[in-house]
C-alpha cells in the first residue's frame, strides 16, 4: 500500500505542483521559485498564438476521426471473433491481431514509409510500370486518414480484449431463448449482445474522452517533419517543441494545463450524460 501511495503522491499529485510554471517565466537555471511570476501572461500569449490554435484544431479533428473511425473497429472485430465457433482458429487469430500493438511507433511509421513513401514499395512499382506515382506520405491532405489507418492497423487487435471479455460474460441461454423465439442474428445482436456489453462500451468511451486530446505523441512527432506542423502539430507536440526544444517552459506548461482542464471537463460531462441515460459511468 505504501509504495503505491508514494507513487501517486510523488509522481501524480506531487508533480501537479510544478504546474505553477504555467504562471511564471520559468528559467531552469533560476529555479522554480527564482523565476519571475507572470500572472496569466503565458495563457495570454498562448491564446494569441495561431500555432497553438492550429495544434488544438488538429488535435480535436484527429480525436474526432479516431472516435468515429477507430473506436468502433475493435468492437466489430471482437464481435466477429466472438462469433467464431472453432476455438482453435479463434485463439490463433486473436493472438495474431494482438501482435502489432507490441511494435513500437518508430517501426510502424518506418513500415508505412517503406510501403507508401515517396521512394517506397508502392511508388517503386508504379514508377517501374510507368504510371503516375502517388504522394501519400509527405502529403498533408492525406496525413489524417493515414494516421487513422496506422492506429487501426496497430491497435485494433489490442482493443478487442476488453470487448471479448465482456462478450464472454453474456449468458448463452439468452441467445438460445432468443433463437427459439425466432430472433435472427441481427436481432440477437441488437437485443441480447449490445445491451449486455453496453456498460463496458460506455465506460471505455468515457475513459477515452478523458484522454481524447492525447492523440498519439510519438506517432505525430515521428511524422511531423514529413508533412509540416500545419497538418501534424497537436497539443502534445506543441508542448514538446515550445517547452523541451524551445525552452519556453511557461508557455508549454500552460498549453499542457489547458489540455488537462479540457480532458477533465469532458470526463465530467460524459459521466453526467451517462448517468442521465441510466448507465453506471466511471464514478457516481
Amino acid at each position, binding site marked *: 500500500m505504501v509504495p503505491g501511495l508514494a507513487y501517486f503522491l510523488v509522481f501524480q499529485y506531487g508533480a501537479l505542483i510544478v504546474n505553477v510554471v504555467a504562471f511564471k517565466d520559468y528559467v531552469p537555471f*533560476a*529555479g522554480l521559485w527564482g523565476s*519571475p511570476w507572470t500572472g496569466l501572461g503565458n495563457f495570454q500569449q498562448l491564446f494569441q498564438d495561431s500555432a497553438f490554435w492550429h495544434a488544438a484544431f488538429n488535435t480535436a479533428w484527429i480525436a474526432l476521426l479516431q472516435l468515429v473511425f477507430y473506436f468502433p473497429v475493435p468492437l466489430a472485430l471482437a464481435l466477429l471473433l466472438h462469433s467464431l465457433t472453432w476455438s482453435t482458429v479463434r485463439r490463433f487469430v486473436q493472438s495474431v491481431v494482438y501482435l502489432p500493438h507490441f511494435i513500437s511507433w518508430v517501426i510502424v511509421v518506418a513500415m508505412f514509409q517503406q510501403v507508401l513513401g515517396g*521512394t517506397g514499395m508502392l511508388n517503386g512499382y508504379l514508377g517501374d510500370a510507368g504510371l503516375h506515382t502517388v*504522394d501519400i506520405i509527405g502529403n498533408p491532405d492525406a496525413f489524417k486518414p493515414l494516421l487513422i489507418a496506422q492506429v487501426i492497423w496497430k491497435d485494433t487487435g489490442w482493443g478487442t480484449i476488453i470487448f471479448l471479455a465482456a462478450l464472454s460474460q453474456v449468458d448463452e441461454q439468452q441467445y438460445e431463448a432468443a433463437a427459439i423465439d425466432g430472433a435472427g442474428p441481427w436481432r440477437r445482436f441488437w437485443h441480447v449482445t449490445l445491451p449486455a456489453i453496453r456498460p463496458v462500451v460506455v465506460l471505455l468511451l468515457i475513459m477515452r474522452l478523458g484522454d481524447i486530446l492525447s492523440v498519439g505523441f510519438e506517432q505525430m512527432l515521428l511524422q511531423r517533419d514529413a508533412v*509540416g506542423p500545419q497538418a501534424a502539430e497537436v497539443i502534445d507536440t506543441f508542448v514538446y517543441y515550445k517547452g*523541451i526544444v524551445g525552452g519556453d517552459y511557461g508557455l508549454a506548461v500552460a498549453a499542457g494545463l489547458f489540455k488537462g482542464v479540457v480532458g477533465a471537463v469532458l470526463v465530467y460531462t460524459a459521466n453526467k450524460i451517462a448517468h442521465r441515460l441510466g448507465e453506471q459511468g466511471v464514478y457516481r
Partner: protein
Amino acid sequence: MSRMSRRTLLRSLAATGAAASVPGLLSACTSSSAAGGNVSNAGKKLAPWPTYHAASGPAPDLAPTGAGVQAGFTSYPSHLVGSVSHTPGDGSTIKVMSVTFGTPPKPEAGNQYWKAVEKALGVKIEYTVIPTDDYQTKMATVMAGDPGSLPDVINMFSGFVLPREAQFVQVRAQDLTPYLSGAAVADYPNLAGIPTQAWQDMGRIGGRIHGIPLERPIPGSTLWLNQGDFTAAGMHDGWTAQDFTAVARKATHGKKYALGSAKGSDFNNNVHSAAHNAPQGWAVDGKGAFHPGYTDERFKAAVAYQAQLRKAGYYHPDSTSLSTADAYTLLLNGTIGSLQNGFGNYTALYPDSKGLLTPAPALPYAVDGTPGGVVAARRSFGYTILKKAPKERIQLLLRVLDYLAAPFGTKEYELTHFGVEGVHFTRGTDGSPQTTELGQVENITNLPFRYLAEGPQVLFVPGFPEATRTLHAWQQKVVPVAIRDASFGLQSATFNAQGTTLKADMDDTITSVIAGRASLSALDGAISKWRSGGGDRMAEEYAKEHAANT
C-alpha cells in the same frame, strides 16, 4: 540548489517518510540567481581576448592567404614536433560531452584508441556523445537538469540555436577569464594558438570569457556535389541559376535525384540564399543598423527558386524528414547528387566516397547577372565550457584541452587524429597515415575529441593530395564572396530567450513554402510575426552590442 527536481523530492520524501513535508520543502528551496540574466556586453568592461601566439609547425605546401584561405598540405609532414611536455592529468576521471557525427564509439574497455588518448592525457574519460539529430533535445534536458550532474567539460555546438544558451553558460559554467584572458593564456600554448577571430565569433557573455572556441575556416554550409553526375549534366564554371535548374533536371532520372537535403535545412536554404546574395542571418549597414536576412527580397527570391526546384521533382521526396546521416548515405550511394553540409565534412567525405564517386564543393551560381555568394561560417564551430570547480581542477581541465588543441604537425595531433601507429594507422609511401581496419572503427570521428578542443585547421586529407589542391583552389574563389552573419559574437537577450522558437517557426514556414504546402505569401505573414515576436528587438540589441564592441 536552485531547482526542485522530482528526484530530490523523492529522496526527501523517503527520508522523512511523510508527504506532509512537501509544501515546506518546496518553499525552502529558493533560488539565488535572477531569471532575466544579463548576457549583453554593452556597457560592460570587456575582458581582453587571449593573446594570440601561433604555434610553430611545418610549412604548408599551399600557403594560407590574409583573406582567409586555409593552409594546405598535400603530404604529411615528415618531421613531427612535440607541443606538450608534461602529462596534463593526475589520473582522475573527467566527464565530457559533445556532439558527434560518427557512429557510437566502442566502449572504453575494448577501445585501444580511447585508452591511448587517456594514457597520454593522464585522465580517465567518460564520454557522452550526442548525435546531431538528438542534440537539441538532449542539450535541452542537460541544461534544465541538476547542476551537480553536469559533465566537467561540455562543448556547446553552434550548429543549433539552444534556448537561453548564453544565460545557461553564464550561470552554470566556470568563468575562464582569469585563466585565459590576455597574457594568462600563455600557460596553455596550444590554446594561445587559436586565432583571435575564433574567440571573437564565440563572443563574450556579460563581458567575460566562458569558453574555448573550436576554430573553423571561412567557408560554412557548402553544397557538396557528386562531381561526375553534375559535370555530365552540364555543370560549368560561371553557371547561372538557369544553368543550375537545367543541370538538376538532367541529373534527376529514375530513382536518382539531383538534390537532397536533411530535415531542418529548409531544402538547403543556406546555400541557395547565399547564391542569391541574401544576408546570412544578419547584415549590418554603414550606420551600424542591423537588417535580418528574412526581410531581404533576395531571400524570398531564393525560397521561390527552391520551391520551383522542388515542384519540378529534383529534390529527393524525403528531403524534409531525412536525418543528416541518412542523407549523407544517400549521397554516397548515388541516390542524391548533392547535399548541403558543413565545409568540414570534407575530411570524412573524400575517404568515405573512395571508389564510389568524386565529391566536390559547388561554386555558387549567378542570379540575374550577379555572381553568387557562399555562406561564411561562424569562425567558431562551437565552444567548450567547464563545470564550475576549484582552481586546480580547472587548471587540469585546461591542460587536457591544451593537449587536445595541439596543431597539425605535432605528435599530439597525430595521436588524437590518427590513433596509434601500427594499430590504427600505418605509414603510406608518402609518410601519411593510412587507416587500418581497426582505425576505421576506433577513431576521432566516433570518439570526437576534436569537438572538445582543436588547433587551427589546415586542409589535409591523408592519401588525397588532389583534394587539398581542389579545396584550396575552391577557397580562393569563394572566400572573397563569403557572406558573413553580422551577429556572430554578439549577444541579444531576446535571441537568448526566444531565438529557438522564433527560428523554428520561420523554418517551418520556409520548409512549407518550398515543399508546396503553403504559398509564397505565407512567408510575409511569418516574417511579420517573427519581427513583432522578437526580430525587431534583436536588431536593436545587436546594433547596441555592435556599437559597444567597436
